[in-house]
């Protein structure tokens, strides 16, 4: 006879090392195997028990599976009991050996000894496979109506297992369930309810079979809540909470979307929620279930408010578990009755201070869904306070949520700027990538706040330059609005908390210098710093210029190629007499149509700011189709300088949103320019068009373009012919166009810029010929008066995007005197967006001896439904006599 189980456990426990334990187990396993071979009946029970122990320690025990089967076929209950236990622990439904047990289990289920039936049902319920479920289901269907409740309750749970494996058998069980509910035995009712819930959850069409049970369920629940002390079922002073919870759960399923059934439950639910003792966990378990039922079914509003108040009370409970379930449930029901949840806002905010992180997370989620326009100030203040103390893993989530709600519900822009700045200064390194760019966009589109913002940012930088995103935004703003920062503000009226710092130029440069030298500064931030300095060079006085130059020069040999290139470019720019306008302020960046959602990485503005100029340039490009590229921003001022001496509005026309700027533009027309400038203008347009077309093509290869163009800026002697040669390649043509313009500006202008070239560059056919044939442009006359003829050449540049139309306006003069001071502006209905470039010239030579072109692009948001309609505003002079006209020019419906 082998040693006892007890001795094995003692031996194993006394092992000092894992190796010793392994050798003991190996020894014992070998002994058990020998005993098995010898068919030692006496020790079989003991061996299986030992195997279970060995199994629990994690050692292999497959060799004992057959022993379990041998035990369960024995007629002895003692053998069966340990045999079935072994079967359940050593085998599972995936093992084929289990099939060998099928017949034995079937026989045992029909045994006359209730305990033999019990153990076999238990094993069946815990590990049966699909095949077994199908085989033995008839026996289960029989014993589910057994006279013994001990067997009935086990059979009901076995039925659950059968239906989980073979849902088709549901029909067989439904008629048998009803009888189970009319029992007095709680265990049988409980298991029957579990079975019903399982059936309903598996297949909601079955719910209908159980609707009639509602009154019966209500009755059972009522008797449980009103019964006195029942020692058999009392748990902490509550009668059978397990059964109560089960009934409430089934009521929830039956009452959902069923006003009639819900109506029958209202009373009992109110009774449960008022009468249940909430001092102990067990009572709260029932209340919790009850609240969920009330919130799910079509219950009365009063009851719903009561349910949310129960959760509010839960929030004040000292038990973390109760607060946890309350927050969880509140966030599930917050959409059903937000007002009722709002009442508990303060308690929820308190939960942010909980030491338990899972409670804090849930509270944050909930607060996030509670924020509205009316309470944002209060809630954001709380969240900011909390951000100060939050631990790192929690910060990023919190910051993301803060930024979303701030963007969504900000009462005004100033508040929004303040809040985001505060978030960035507290937890700048945790903010999502898109937040800085959104903030820059916000500041740039709110000119009235730019002075305020730059001062705030300056102050923030003085305190802390280690938060990279904050530093980058700060540098961007200082670069853009440096003049506002150092301006003398003593004369300006202060609003109540307005800032009026008096900052010296030296102090600003000092801070940039500090950023350069700080150890935590990243390369990207250094790039921002360089660009910021370059911008400041045109905003600060001559005295600061030398210092800026020296600082930039330091980077000419930097090991980082990006910094080096930038430093070289900028220092060359200083010798370039047009730099002031190149470094002019960026036009306001417009918000994208579809407001950028944090987390949605598809939106291009959210690309992390890798390179300063790239970001500066991408933003306008991608946020508004009104901007071609950085070069638009660059070239519009250039153009204005080309037209030097004119207070012209061409800049605006190019950079601004044509729609919103129309009114400003109307009324002032550019004055004629000299011939040389005209050529430049032509060239400029050419470049613009190239660029814009390129953008219209989908803005691909932005980085490339930018790099090319920046490279181009440095290159002074380039051949104009490049333009023609490379016209079929967008990138190249854009780059070379730039090269051209730089060449023109710096060297002698080419005497004759062929008109056709600019046309060619404009032509969509040319742009897309590589990809797909494009419909021939349609040309037609739209205006004819005073000798002025305007005709449109319309084309669709993108065959797969018909909503975009290029309109090339060709203006000629059939009169005998030249038309001067020509200006053409256009307005469109709301569903259209128009981008209008400057005319190639403001002078139209007489007698049809030359033509002026002006390019526009129209984006039709209702393509195919509404036609394109342009209202023009024409101003011009003939022989010094001013003319003005406002004609409507519709396009043919196919456009």
């Amino acid at each position: 006879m082998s040693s006892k189980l007890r001795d094995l456990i003692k031996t194993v426990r006394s092992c000092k090392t894992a190796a010793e334990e392994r050798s003991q187990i190996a020894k014992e396993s070998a002994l058990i195997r020998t005993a098995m071979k010898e068919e030692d009946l006496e020790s079989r029970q003991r061996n299986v028990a030992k195997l279970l122990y060995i199994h629990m320690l994690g050692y292999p025990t497959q060799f004992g599976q057959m022993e379990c089967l041998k035990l369960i076929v024995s007629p002895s209950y003692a053998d069966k009991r340990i045999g079935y236990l072994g079967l359940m622990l050593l085998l599972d439904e995936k093992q084929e050996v289990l099939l060998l047990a099928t017949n034995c289990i079937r026989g045992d289920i029909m045994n006359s000894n209730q305990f033999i039936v019990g153990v076999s049902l238990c094993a069946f319920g815990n590990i049966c496979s699909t095949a077994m479920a199908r085989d033995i289901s008839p026996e289960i269907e029989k014993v589910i109506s057994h006279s013994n409740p001990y067997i009935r309750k086990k059979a009901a749970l076995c039925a659950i297992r059968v239906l989980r494996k073979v849902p088709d058998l549901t029909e067989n069980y439904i008629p048998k369930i009803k009888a189970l509910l009319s029992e007095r035995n709680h265990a049988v009712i409980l298991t029957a309810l579990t079975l019903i819930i399982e059936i309903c959850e598996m297949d909601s069409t079955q719910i209908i079979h159980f609707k009639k049970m509602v009154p019966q369920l209500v009755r059972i629940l009522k008797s449980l809540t009103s019964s006195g002390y029942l020692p058999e079922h009392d748990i902490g002073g509550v009668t059978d909470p397990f059964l109560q919870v089960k009934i409430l759960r089934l009521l929830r399923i039956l009452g959902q979307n069923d006003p009639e059934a819900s109506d029958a439950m209202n009373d009992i639910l109110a009774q449960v929620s008022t009468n249940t003792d909430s001092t102990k966990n067990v009572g709260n378990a029932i209340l919790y279930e009850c609240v969920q039922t009330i919130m799910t079914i079509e219950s009365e509003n009063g009851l719903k408010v009561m349910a949310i108040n129960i959760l509010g009370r839960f929030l004040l409970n000292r038990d973390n578990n109760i607060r946890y379930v309350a927050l969880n449930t509140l966030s599930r029901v917050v959409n059903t009755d937000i007002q009722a949840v709002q009442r508990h806002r303060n308690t929820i905010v308190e939960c942010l201070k909980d030491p338990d992180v899972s409670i804090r997370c849930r509270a944050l989620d909930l607060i996030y869904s509670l924020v509205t326009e009316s309470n944002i100030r209060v809630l954001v203040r709380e969240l900011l306070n909390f951000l100060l103390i939050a631990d790192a893993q929690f910060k990023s989530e919190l910051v993301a949520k803060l930024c979303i709600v701030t963007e969504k519900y900000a009462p005004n822009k100033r508040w929004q700027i303040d809040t985001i700045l505060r978030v960035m200064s507290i937890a700048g390194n945790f903010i999502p990538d898109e937040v800085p760019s959104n903030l820059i966009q916000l500041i740039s589109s709110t000119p009235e706040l730019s002075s305020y913002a730059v001062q705030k940012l300056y102050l923030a930088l003085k305190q802390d330059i280690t938060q990279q995103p904050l530093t980058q935004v700060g540098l961007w703003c200082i670069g853009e609005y440096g003049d506002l920062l150092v301006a003398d503000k003593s004369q300006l009226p202060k609003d109540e908390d307005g800032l009026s710092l008096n900052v010296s130029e030296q102090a600003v440069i000092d801070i940039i210098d500090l950023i350069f030298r700080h150890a935590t500064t990243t390369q990207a931030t250094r790039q921002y710093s360089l660009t910021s300095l370059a911008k400041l060079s045109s905003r600060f006085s001559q005295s600061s210029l030398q210092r800026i130059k020296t600082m930039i020069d330091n980077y000419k040999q930097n090991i980082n190629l990006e910094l080096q290139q930038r430093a070289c470019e900028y220092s060359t720019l200083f010798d370039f007499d047009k730099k002031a306008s190149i470094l002019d302020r960026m036009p306001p960046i417009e918000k994208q149509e579809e407001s950028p959602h944090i987390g949605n990485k598809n939106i291009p503005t959210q690309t992390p700011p890798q390179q300063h100029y790239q970001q500066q340039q991408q933003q306008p490009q991608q946020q508004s189709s009104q901007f071609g590229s950085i070069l638009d921003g660059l070239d519009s001022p250039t153009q204005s300088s080309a037209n030097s001496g004119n207070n012209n509005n061409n800049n605006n026309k190019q950079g601004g949103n044509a729609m919103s700027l129309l009114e400003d533009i109307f009324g002032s027309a550019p004055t004629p320019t000299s011939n040389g400038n005209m050529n430049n203008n032509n060239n400029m347009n050419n470049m613009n068009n190239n660029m814009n077309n390129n953008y219209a093509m989908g803005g691909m290869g932005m980085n490339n373009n930018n790099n090319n163009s920046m490279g181009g800026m440095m290159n002074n002697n380039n051949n104009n012919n490049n333009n023609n040669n490379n016209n079929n390649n967008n990138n190249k043509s854009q780059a070379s166009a730039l090269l051209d313009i730089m060449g023109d500006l710096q060297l002698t202008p080419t005497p004759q810029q062929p008109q056709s070239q600019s046309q060619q560059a404009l032509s969509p056919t040319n742009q897309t010929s590589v990809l797909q044939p494009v419909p021939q442009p349609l040309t037609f006359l739209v205006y004819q008066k005073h000798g002025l003829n305007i005709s449109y050449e319309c084309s669709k540049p993108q065959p797969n995007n018909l909503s975009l139309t290029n309109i090339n306006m060709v203006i000629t003069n059939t009169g005998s005197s030249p038309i001067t001071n020509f200006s053409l502006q256009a307005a469109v209905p709301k569903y259209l967006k128009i981008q209008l470039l400057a005319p190639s010239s403001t002078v139209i030579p007489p007698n049809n001896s030359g033509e002026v072109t002006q390019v526009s692009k129209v984006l039709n948001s209702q393509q195919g439904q509404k036609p394109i309609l342009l209202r023009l505003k024409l101003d011009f002079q003939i022989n010094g006599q001013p003319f003005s006209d406002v004609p409507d020019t519709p396009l043919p419906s196919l456009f």
Partner: protein
Amino acid sequence: MTFHFLLLLSRQGKTRLTKWYSPFTNKEKSRFTREIGNMVLNRPPKLCNFLEWKEYKIIFKRYASLYFVVCCDREDNELIVLEIIHHFVEILDRYFGNVCELDLIFNFHKAYYILDELIMAGELQETSKKTVLRLISQQDTLLEGGPGEHKVDL
């Protein structure tokens, strides 16, 4: 309230009882036990007793040196699961008479028998402590001297 599994872990991380109601491979079983053991044992005592884990929820409670861990569905009532754990502990306590970890180490099979009278197919089957204890003691007596019984002192 479907239990996917139930574990009893000692404070040292040793497994005292495992019961799997959903099919997992042996590899998964040992990985889950380790993973959950780490989560539960290292959790500071004052935090709540619920953990979200994979698509499930882990609900655990510590009694002296033993952690009772249950894995159930996300939508289950966490509070009543805690009650079920407590129900099980009380029955063990009455059966062994002031139960301690050693009782469960040397009589793990009896703990399994009790559990099997309490929970089946991952669902609660008996709500009365007395009934469970009565049934267990009836079965224990049956071993002693039924006709044709084959009792072995384990």
